[in-house]
C-alpha cells in the first residue's frame, strides 16, 4: 500500500482538520439546525432593535385601550387597538414591544445561565470523574450538599445579602443548574475513563488536563447537548417562577415568563396576551432543541 509519487504530491495539499472544523461543516449542512440558528438570530435581533422598531415604549401606559385586541383579530373582542399589532395588555401597554423586551431578559437568562452551568458543570464533572478516588468523592459530596439547599430559600438569602439585582438572577440560576450537569458529565466521564484510547493517550505522555479537554469532554458532548437544550427551557421557566415570587424581574421590565403568567390569568377575555409570548417562547425552545440536536450530531463523526 505504498503511495506513489503522484498521490503523495496531491495528498500534500490535504490540510489537517480538527474535530471542531469538521463539526462546523457538518452543522452547516444540517438544515434543521441552521434554520433554528437563523430564527434564533432573528428573534435576538428583533429584541435588540425593539425600541427602533416600535413607536411605543415598553412602559408607556394608555388607560384608553386596556386589554384590547389587535385590529386583525378574527374573533369578536371587547375593544380594538389600531396600530398595536399584538394588541395591548391589562394596563394598555403595547404587547409587541413588551414581548420583544421580554425576549431580552429571557434569552439572556436562558443563554448566560446555561453557558455558566455548562462551563462549570462540564469542567467540574469531568475533573471529578477523571481524577476519581478521594478527590472525586469530595467534589461530589460538595455537589450533594449544594443540591440539598432549598432553591427558593437560597435565592432569598442571596437577595437579602446582595440586594435585588438582575445579575443575581444569573448567579442564582447558574449556581443551581450546574449541579445536575456536573453529575451527568461525571457519570459519562467514569465510563469514558475506562476506554483504551484514554490509556493510549496516557501512554503517549499526554497530561491529565489535556486528556480531560482533548479526549474526555469531546466524548461527553452527546448527553451534555441533550441536557443543555432541556436546561435552556428550564431556566427560562425558572426565571418566570422567580419573577412571580417577586424575586426576579420587576415591573415595568418584563420577561416571557412574566408575560405568560399574566396572559394565563386573562386567557378567557384576552387570549392574545397569552398567545404571543407563548408562541415566541415555543418557537425559541423548538429552535434550541434543533440546534442542540444538530450540535450533537455534528460532533459525532460517525453520523453522516
Amino acid at each position, binding site marked *: *500500500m*505504498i*503511495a506513489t509519487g503522484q*498521490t*503523495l504530491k*496531491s*495528498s*500534500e495539499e*490535504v490540510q*489537517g*482538520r*480538527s*474535530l471542531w472544523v*469538521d463539526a462546523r461543516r457538518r452543522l452547516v449542512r444540517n438544515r434543521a439546525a441552521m434554520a433554528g440558528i437563523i430564527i434564533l438570530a432573528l428573534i435576538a435581533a428583533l429584541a435588540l432593535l425593539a425600541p427602533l422598531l416600535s413607536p411605543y415604549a415598553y412602559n408607556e401606559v394608555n388607560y384608553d385601550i386596556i386589554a384590547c385586541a389587535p385590529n386583525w383579530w378574527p374573533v369578536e373582542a371587547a375593544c380594538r387597538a389600531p396600530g398595536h399589532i399584538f394588541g395591548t395588555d391589562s394596563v394598555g401597554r403595547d404587547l409587541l414591544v413588551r414581548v420583544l423586551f421580554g425576549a431580552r431578559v429571557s434569552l439572556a437568562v436562558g443563554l448566560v445561565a446555561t453557558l455558566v452551568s455548562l462551563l462549570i458543570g462540564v469542567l467540574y464533572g469531568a475533573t471529578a470523574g477523571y481524577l476519581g478516588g478521594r478527590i472525586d468523592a469530595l467534589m461530589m459530596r460538595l455537589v450533594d450538599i449544594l443540591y440539598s439547599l432549598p432553591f427558593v430559600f437560597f435565592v432569598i438569602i442571596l437577595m437579602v445579602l446582595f440586594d435585588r439585582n438582575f445579575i443575581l438572577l444569573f448567579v442564582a440560576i447558574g449556581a443551581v443548574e450546574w449541579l445536575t450537569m456536573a453529575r451527568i458529565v461525571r457519570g459519562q466521564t467514569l465510563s469514558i475513563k475506562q*476506554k*483504551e*484510547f484514554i*490509556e*493510549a*493517550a*496516557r*501512554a*503517549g*505522555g*499526554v*497530561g491529565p488536563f*489535556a486528556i480531560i479537554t*482533548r*479526549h474526555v469532554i*469531546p*466524548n461527553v*458532548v452527546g448527553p451534555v447537548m441533550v441536557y443543555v437544550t432541556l436546561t435552556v427551557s428550564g431556566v427560562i421557566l425558572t426565571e418566570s417562577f422567580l419573577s412571580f415570587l417577586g424575586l426576579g424581574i420587576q415591573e415595568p421590565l418584563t420577561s416571557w415568563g412574566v408575560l405568560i403568567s399574566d396572559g394565563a390569568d386573562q386567557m378567557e377575555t384576552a387570549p392574545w396576551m397569552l398567545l404571543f409570548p407563548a408562541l415566541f417562547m415555543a418557537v425559541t425552545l423548538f429552535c434550541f432543541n434543533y440546534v442542540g440536536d444538530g450540535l450533537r450530531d455534528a*460532533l*459525532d*463523526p*460517525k453520523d453522516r
Partner: protein
Amino acid sequence: MSALLEITGLNVRFDLPDGEVHAVKDANLVIHPGECLGVVGESGSGKSQLFLAAFGLLAANGRASGSAKYRGEEILGASQKHLNALRGNKVTMIFQDPLTSLTPHMKVGAQITEALRLHHNMPREEAVKRAREMLDYVRIPESARRLDQYPHELSGGMRQRVMIAMATITGPDLIIADEPTTALDVTVQAQILEILRNLKSEKHTAIAMVSHDMGVIAGIADRVQVMRHGEIVESGSADDIFYAPKHAYTRMLLNAIPKADETPAPATEIGAPLLTVDDLKVTFPIKNGLFAPAQALRAVDGISFTLHQGETLGVVGESGCGKSTLARAVLQLLPKTGGRVVWLGRDLDAQTQSDIRRLREDFQIVFQDPLASLDPRMPIGVSIAEPLKALEPHLPRDTVRQRVRAMMSRVGLEPGWINRYPHELSGGQNQRVGLARAMIVGPRMLVCDEAVSALDVSIQAQIVALIRDLQAQTGLALLFISHDLSVVRRLSHRVMVLYLGRVVELAPSAMLYADPRHPYTRALLSAVPTPDPRIERAKTRILLTGDLPSPLDPKAQLTFLKSRLGEPGYRPKLEQILPGHFVAEHD
C-alpha cells in the same frame, strides 16, 4: 446417503442506508448426517449469515432467496411456527460469546431444561435429571450445584460447555457452531473441541463448524468450504483443502498461518540491556461488600526479566495470567505493589511523574482493540500527532505535520487520510494508525499488548511483517504480549510463559517450542491447533482438566507443584536447566 441439510443458490442481501449489501452470493452446500462441515472465512465473508438465513434468523433488513432443505423439506421462507419446531430441537446452534447467548437472569438448569420442556413436554424432574447427565457429559464438575447457578457465576469455558449441553440435550441431528471457541483460551478451546469431536463420533451428530481459524477446522472437519466476500470459493474434503488447495485465496489463508517449521528469529542485532524488571508485583484489592476486608488479587506476583536492545521478548499466557497488567505496570500506567523497574540504569520509582512523562518518548504501547484505542472523535492525523505534541511541545507545526505524513507512509497508510476518523478505516488500517502513533516519537521499546489478536489472519500477517520491518530499521526492543503462541513464535527471540502472574518457563524461542519442560507450557503448546488435518487427527492431546484456578486462591500457584500443597504461601522457584532456559519448579 440422503443429505441432512442442502442449501442451493442461497443469496442474502441487506438493505442499508448506503445501499444494498450482497452478503452471501449463490451459496451451495450439503451436510450429511454425522459429518462435520467446516466453513472458513475471514470477518465479513458471510459465513455466519449463510446459516442464519437458512433457518430464518436474519436481521430485519435482510432478505434471503434460493433454497434450503432440511431432510428434503424446504425451510427457507417456512412459517415461524414450523421453524420453531425445528430450531432448538433438531437443529441447534452454539454462538461465539457464551455470556451474551445465555440469559443472565435465568439459572443454568432452567435454561438447559427449557428446550426439553418446550419441545418434548418432559416433566420437570426428568428434565433436570437429563440436564445433569448432559452437564456430566460436557465434563462440568459438580453438575448438581451448577444447575442452581447463574451464567455470570461460571467461567467462559464453563459457559460454552453449558451452551453445548443446551444444544445437545434435545438430541439434534445438526449443531451449527458459529466460532464456538474464538472467545476462549487455547487450553479451554482444546477441551471444547474434544467435546464436539466426541459428540460427532458417539452421538453421530452432524456439525457445521463456522470458524476463521484453519487450525480449529483442521482438527474437526471432514469437508471444508472456504468463503470470501460472500462467495464459496473452494470446497472439498479436508485433505484436499489443506494439502492441495486450488484457489489462490485458500492458499493465501494457509500461508498466512505461521508454520511449525518456519524459522522465526528476526535478524536484528541484540544489544545492551534496556529494561530490567525485578520481582515486579501488582495486586488489586477486591472488595466484597462495604465492611468485609478487601482481598488481594495478585495479578502480577513476582516477575523478573531483562529486555535487550533489538530483542523481542514474547509473553504468552491465557486470560487472567497477568500479561496485560505486566505491560501496564512496566509502562508505569498502573501503580505497582512491589519490585523494581529499571530503564537504562534509572530506577523508575525514583522518577517524578513529569520525568516519567518525558521518558515515555522511549517506551510506547500498541493496544489490542485498534478501534477502542483510538479516540472516535479525533481525526487519525491528530491522534498520530498527539504523543509528539505532548512530548515535544516546542516542535513547529510544519515539522509535526511532516513527521505525521512520513510516519503514515512508513506504516502503509495514505498520508492524505489524515482527516479520516477511526470508524472510516478497517481494523488493520486502524492498527497501523496505532503503530504510527506509538512509533512517531521514536521509542526504543515497544510493548504490543495483543496487538494483532483482533485481526483477521491475512491482516495479522501484514501487521506482524510491518512490526518486524520497523524493528529491523530502528533496532527497537519489543515486548510482544499475546495469547497466540504461533504469532509469538514468529517474532520472538525469547519467550516467557506466564501462569497466574508468575513465570513458569522462560527460554529462547526455538528451545521453548522444541523442548517445553513445564507441564503447563506443554499443555499450552499441545492445545494450539495446527492447520494440518493429519497431524491434528494423530495428535495425542495433553488436556488440562477443569478451569484455571482462581488467582484469589492461595494454593493456586501450587497447581503444578502438588508436593508443596502443605505450604500455601510457597511460590515455585525458577531454575535454570540449560543456559538461558528457566523452568519453574514442578512435580
